[in-house]
């Protein structure tokens, strides 16, 4: 479907950019993608998101939309086919609540843990597990947050499907416990097998190496 001048400024490793790419793909919207070098941001990015200077930014019909969850809502409202959000206001509120929960609790816990070592690492992993366990309750026993198919919250949260497992590997910690979080573990499998989501997930080895590099840099900063 032609996307009347749709452009996305993103970064290959950004879960937030992945959200937007997933939404655009699920709706079959064609767009131009611009990969940003986060160490040398383009004038277009700085001009389109002067407040935060961050990706993702969606450019559409001369307007720029920033903040990934705001972009998801925008996409859903402009291109109304294959809706991401459910129709019912209460279910919409639930989807928004869980997307927000992930940003406020899971993101800091998962990202914060990357630079930790020893006891701090164990504590970080424990906190991340607690938040993931809480997140699992949002599934309410269903296969995905959207109920029967990928929806707004699955798109918002889907990045955890690949990132949590890679973080477990890279940091040698336990995050998603098959035994204690069977529903969340099953959700991860469901997301990773979804034909749209699967194709968009960044390559395992690239993410793994990037995480190890970032961890080493952050640990070096902390110890200096």
């Amino acid at each position, binding site marked *: 479907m032609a996307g009347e001048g749709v452009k996305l400024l993103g970064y290959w490793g950004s879960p937030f950019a992945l959200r937007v790419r997933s939404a655009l793909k699920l709706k079959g919207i064609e767009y131009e993608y611009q990969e940003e070098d986060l160490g040398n941001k383009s004038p277009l990015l700085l001009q389109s998101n002067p*407040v935060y200077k961050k990706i993702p930014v969606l450019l559409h019909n001369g*307007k720029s*939309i*920033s*903040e990934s969850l*705001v*972009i998801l*809502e*925008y996409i859903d*409202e*402009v291109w109304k086919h294959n809706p991401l959000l459910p129709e019912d*206001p*209460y279910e*919409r*509120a639930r989807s*928004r*609540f869980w997307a*927000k*929960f992930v940003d406020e609790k899971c993101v800091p816990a998962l990202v914060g843990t990357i630079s930790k070592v020893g006891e701090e690492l164990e504590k970080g992993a424990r906190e991340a597990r607690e938040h993931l366990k*809480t997140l699992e*309750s949002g599934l309410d026993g269903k296969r995905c947050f959207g109920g029967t198919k990928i929806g707004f919250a699955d798109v918002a949260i889907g990045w955890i499907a690949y990132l949590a497992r890679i973080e477990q590997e890279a940091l040698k910690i336990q995050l998603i416990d098959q035994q204690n979080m069977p529903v969340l573990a099953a959700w991860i499998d469901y997301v990773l097998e979804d034909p749209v989501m699967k194709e968009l997930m960044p390559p395992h080895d690239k993410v793994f190496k990037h995480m190890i590099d970032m961890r080493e840099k952050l640990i070096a900063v902390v110890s200096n």
Partner: protein
Amino acid sequence: MAEEVKLFRTWSSGYALRIVWALKLKGIEYETIFEDLTNKSPSLLQYNPIHGKVPVLVHDGKPVCESLVILEYVDETWKHNPLLPQDPCEKSMARFWANFGDDKLMKSISQLFIAREKDQDVAAVEALENLKLVEEQLKGKKFFHGETIGYLDLAFGWFADFVSILEEIMSLKLVDGERFPHLSSWIQHFIDAPVIRDCWPPRDKMIIKFQVMREKYLAAATPK
């Protein structure tokens, strides 16, 4: 069948006030439950088990949490007197700035509020930069969405009240009419607006509450 609407709130929560105003703007009748957050009711913990915070809106037994999520729920459930603009791009801007208010602005105002005297000038820099951005949004408008009060006014409502409380406690002028003519004007229009003005918590009680809070922070921050 008459619908049952309940709002869990505290006497001082600016987040809960957003919902009080929204329900008033829509003419929705509801029951108020005042919470003491040092002694949370079983109902609150049942309706908001994840965060245990206010506000919580319970509509026909179904709880909605997180004030900005609740605002959207209210707007989608009771469609008259809309709070959010219809246009997707304007809606996105409203959501973007509401998030900015809750994240960047609130953080910088809080940092200023708890800064020791010698650190206040530095803390003020970021707060003032953020206020400049808000000032820009109000150029040529009485309220954030134009002539009438809407979502973004309710989202920034906490600030309209808090700024004068901060100024009194800290004996400084943060929003002066010369530097921030539009923001000053918005504050005046908003705090006096018919739907808004009867809902403010008692000012003397607020001054005491925030004075005590500030003293606690300053005492904790003092090197021993």
